[in-house]
């Protein structure tokens, strides 16, 4: 080898070493906690696929069922990611689901599909605006405002039909909002994909998304930089209410009926899905895609643990242990932070 060749090679290996060092540095800067949810998703999927290979877990029907079953949770989770990232909370989403489904079903029965959908969504818009008004104009904590709204709306949902279920007999509505499919693709999967895609774009690629994160990270600093913090907070609560109402419409379509208890127990699974997905409970950071994956993890656990033949208490214990493990990894603050 000639001297220039050796020099060139030495130079090349020097550049290569620099590149490796730079990649390693970048990798070191990456917070592994952000990716734990995806690893957990894969691990759980692989585990159930192997363990339940003869029990129908991997059948396309069952996998589609998981997506269909988790769609309302995913839709609500997308809205709540914005709220949590802005440093607020919305506890009223479960009640909104019930009331919107009932209002939609009743309006649908008497006034047709379009008005039914608008009336159902109107419940969420109204709830979001009221939550926003009390939180920003009257400067009350969103925790307390939405807790009060949770009770108020749950009461309205019980009162509106006197606890009776309302059947959804409009087939077109049922097909669009939960029971139908486009070719082999269930309509619920499409709703899930559309809401997550729009939510991701809004959160990651718009000024509004940046303002949401800035508001949740440091409200005072956000205000100083010219962000209209109150508007941001009203907007996220409005978005959350509207998406909860959409979840109510999806429930009504999937079950072809509406009842006052729909969504009542969804708040905790939604929060769990979001938190597992990497959104901080106290604002400043969030992940829409993480929330989707968190929601799918919740659905997969429900499904897989049932198929494993565990007793009801066994399922609850296993789910608790797995979730505790997941949040221990995703939410643990680094030492010294």
């Amino acid at each position, binding site marked *: 080898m000639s001297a220039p060749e050796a020099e060139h090679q030495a130079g090349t290996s020097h550049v290569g070493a620099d590149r490796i060092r730079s990649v390693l540095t970048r990798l070191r800067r990456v917070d592994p906690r952000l990716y734990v949810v995806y690893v957990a998703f894969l691990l759980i999927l692989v585990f159930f696929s192997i363990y339940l290979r003869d029990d129908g877990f991997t059948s396309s029907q069952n996998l589609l069922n998981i997506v269909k079953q988790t769609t309302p949770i995913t839709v609500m989770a997308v809205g709540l990611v914005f709220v949590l990232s802005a440093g607020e909370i919305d506890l009223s989403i479960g009640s909104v689901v019930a009331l919107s489904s009932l209002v939609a079903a009743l309006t649908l029965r008497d006034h047709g599909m379009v008005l039914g959908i608008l009336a159902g969504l109107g419940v969420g818009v109204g709830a979001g605006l009221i939550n926003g008004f009390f939180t920003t104009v009257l400067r009350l904590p969103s925790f307390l405002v939405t807790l009060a709204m949770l009770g108020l709306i749950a009461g309205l949902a019980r009162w509106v039909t006197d606890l009776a*279920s309302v059947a959804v007999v409009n087939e077109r509505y049922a097909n669009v909002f939960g029971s139908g499919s486009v070719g082999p693709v269930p309509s619920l999967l499409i709703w899930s994909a559309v809401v997550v895609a729009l939510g991701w774009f809004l959160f990651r690629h718009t000024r509004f998304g940046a303002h949401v994160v800035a508001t949740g990270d440091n409200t005072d600093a956000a205000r100083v930089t010219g962000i209209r913090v109150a508007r941001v907070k009203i907007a996220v609560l409005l978005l959350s209410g509207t998406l909860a109402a959409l979840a109510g419409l999806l429930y009504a379509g999937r079950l072809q009926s509406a009842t006052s208890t729909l969504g009542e*127990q969804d708040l905790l699974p939604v929060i769990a899905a979001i938190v597992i997905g990497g959104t901080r409970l106290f604002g400043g950071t969030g992940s829409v895609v993480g929330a989707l994956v968190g929601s799918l993890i919740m659905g997969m656990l429900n499904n897989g643990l049932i198929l494993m033949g565990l007793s009801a208490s066994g399922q609850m214990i296993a789910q608790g242990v797995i979730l505790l493990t997941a949040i221990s990894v995703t939410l643990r603050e680094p030492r010294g932070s």
Partner: protein
Amino acid sequence: MKAPRKVAAVAAAIVIVGVAATTSVASLTANPPIPSSKTLGTTHGPAGEKATPTSALKLSAAEVAKVKKGHYTAALVWHQTSDFEAAVTAGARDTFKQLGIKIVATTIANFDAGKQKSDIETVMAKKPTVMLTLPVDPVATASAYKAAAQAGTKIVLLSNVPKGFVQGKDYVSVVTDDLFQMGKHAADALAFAIGDKGDVAYFFHDANYYVTNQRDQAFLKTIQGNFKNITIVDKQGIADPNKATDQANAVLLKNPNLSGIYVTFSQPPAEGVLAALKSNGSKAKLVSLDLDEPLALDMARGGNVTAIVADKAYELGASMARAAAYGILKKKAPAFVVAPAITITKANLVQGYQQSLHRKPPASVMAALGK
């Protein structure tokens, strides 16, 4: 908002009709010596079917052997976890064991219709031969049950029937409590405890749930029809079971000389009412439905609780499993099967637990009984 109420009421399966004599089922009970008043109603099936006692569901040795050979599987799709559900499951499990049927999935919906629909879809991945279930909402879950029935799974129902379901085609049988007798037994027990006279408060379940609605109505009908010297002075609808204590405090404030209280079910409303009776120093007698440790303990100690009316939950589960075998064998099953009611007092507390839940009373109750 009457129309939706009617829709759900129609869907809510079973109604009390007419005035009839005591059914043969009532005679199967082993109750303490509480005089039985005239029976002013009876429990009928969703389409007016006559009640068949659980004892009528019988399998011959040859039929058991035939089922055993098939190595069939079962899914249990329940509404909630409770002593009741545990006893029903135990009854089903023991009977399935004798029939060689393996339980491959168990689910609990926690009264969430959306979750129950998901649960049904999930267990169908295992293609169970039979499904024992209590539908949380007869309207919302109907489509999922329909799909399961169409896939060939034999469905045996507990208490509730999905909307539009036809016996023999969509499900094998519906098994339930003798609901009218439960309410009647409660009325007889309370009347006996207060000497057939006095003021009584009536705490009913203020929800559209036909099991509790029928029991409550049976209590009311029996008291009003058979005990002319007993006056219902206050009717309290329990919409939020956790607020029963507050409601009971208010009732006791208005009616300090109350002789008795009926509470629709034990946990948590009757426990709450009992707490109010204790804190107010009231001597009013309390009767409620469904076995529960705090109530049983108070009864064992000679407190306010004078009787608990219960169903034979273990027997319900065992009967459902036998009905499932009818479905597998394509044997004609009775449409509407009922398990008898039991009145449990201090005198028969141990036997009552055994009959209802197929186990001993909790240690605290045994200790209070000195056993």
